[in-house]
């Protein structure tokens, strides 16, 4: 196995391990479209990074957080439904990102790489960044597991019993923003939500408790990453889409299991 492929595999496994529990919350809290919206805003983050000359992962996380806060603020005004609001934010930020990027006459800007991932561009620093980022996501989710779950089951009850639900929600959004930033080179902006949603959905049918579902989702994600990378090499297909295709196939396969 050559060097960069091993690096890519390690980064992919780390991402899948973090996406397992995080994706379970995305599925339980019906945040799939929110994840998509964050991913769309990543392009705005990249243009921000070019402007300010900062690291793209940092800029994407900041853009995602800004979007999450804007969303919470707009939700409080309750002028339109949340899915409409997400549609507005997702496409406005994607479009604005494309417009701003077009001002740069820069060879660094490879749109296809951002949209669908570019494994070859993954360097050692990126791998370290992914490892550090996913480790902190896993640590935070484990630490906040009980309050996060209590809030997911019944937000008002959790608040009545003294849990800081607004802070918990922001923490969850921040973690999704971070994972989006870290996964961009791996699978690309347009496919990131798949890593969160599909393995969690695959795990559902095999799980009898929330914790089980989080762990099985991580396992399904790791399997998809491994199979996708392994297949993309001989087939000479792009790694990100191959990984997501594998995750989708695994989900279809899981449907064959008879319902309990």
């Amino acid at each position: 196995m050559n060097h960069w492929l091993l690096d890519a595999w390690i980064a992919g496994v780390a991402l899948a391990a973090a996406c397992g529990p995080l994706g379970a919350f995305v599925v339980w809290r019906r945040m799939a479209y929110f994840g998509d919206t964050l991913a769309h805003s990543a392009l705005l983050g990249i243009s921000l990074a070019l402007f300010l000359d900062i690291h793209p992962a940092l800029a994407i996380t900041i853009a995602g957080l800004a979007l999450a806060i804007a969303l919470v603020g707009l939700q409080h005004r309750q002028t339109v439904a949340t899915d409409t609001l997400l549609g507005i934010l997702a496409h406005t930020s994607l479009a604005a990102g494309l417009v701003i990027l077009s001002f740069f006459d820069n060879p660094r800007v490879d749109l296809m790489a951002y949209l669908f991932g570019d494994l070859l561009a993954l360097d050692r620093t990126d791998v370290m960044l992914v490892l550090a980022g996913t480790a902190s996501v896993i640590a935070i989710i484990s630490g906040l597991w009980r309050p996060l779950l209590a809030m997911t089951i019944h937000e008002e009850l959790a608040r009545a019993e003294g849990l800081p639900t607004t802070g918990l929600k922001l923490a969850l959004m921040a973690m999704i923003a971070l994972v989006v930033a870290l996964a961009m080179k791996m699978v690309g902006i347009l496919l990131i939500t798949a890593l969160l949603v599909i393995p969690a959905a695959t795990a559902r049918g095999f799980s009898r408790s929330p914790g089980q579902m989080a762990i099985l989702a991580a396992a399904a994600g790791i399997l998809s990453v491994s199979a996708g990378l392994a297949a993309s090499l001989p087939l000479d297909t792009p790694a990100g889409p191959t990984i997501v295709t594998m995750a989708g196939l695994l989900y279809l396969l899981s449907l064959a299991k008879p319902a309990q």
Partner: protein
Amino acid sequence: MSSSLLHAHGLVYRQQGRVLIDHISLSMNAGEIVSIIGPNGAGKTTLVRLLLGLLKADDGSIERAPGLRIGYMPQRFHVDPNLPLPVSHLMRLASRDQHAITRALQRTQALALHDTPLQKLSGGEFQRVLLARALLRQPNLLVLDEPAQGVDIKGQAAFYRLIAELRDELGCGVLLVSHDLHLVMASSDRVICLNQHICCEGHPDAVSTNPAYLELFGEPALEGLGVYTHHHDHHHNLHGDAIPEHDHSRCSHS
């Protein structure tokens, strides 16, 4: 034992210019079962949310006794079908003490449901599980919001009996919210009839003959009780505001 657990004074809550809670004062004592009844949209849930501290009142104040532990039982709630959650896990999120969990489930006759996923519970089962969950906090005040929703009459009667027993055992105060008064009344020490403001309050027998109550619930609600005293002193317009007719003395507007 009749120490005051909670005292609310002159609560006002507005939403987008509409007054949902209009100068409500009430107190809860230990060992007392208070039922709040009122039609849909009367502000019952808003009042509960104010008392629980989930909403901030625009005016008025709430005093809570030091060391007050509220066991809150929300209305039957929706659990996402994608969340695999057996009763045991719901309980473990509220307490790490397995013995306490077993005792609480036993007390509400829900121990057999220990491993059942929440999505598979019937209305009555869900209710008993939520009550057991509220008990885990060793509450001195139980707040139950529409606990009888989706439960048949026999189940409701049994549930209210259980509440009365728990009050006797724990000496806790119980605040009960319902839009259906018949079964609530038997176990209540005090009934508060709500429609934005407090229309009338008092002992169940007194309330059921109060004209304000009759006005709010109409004649059909009373057929089973065989009581009918037709003396309106006010009625409500579309906003729920009280419109006086003759004499205000029969109804306690606070």
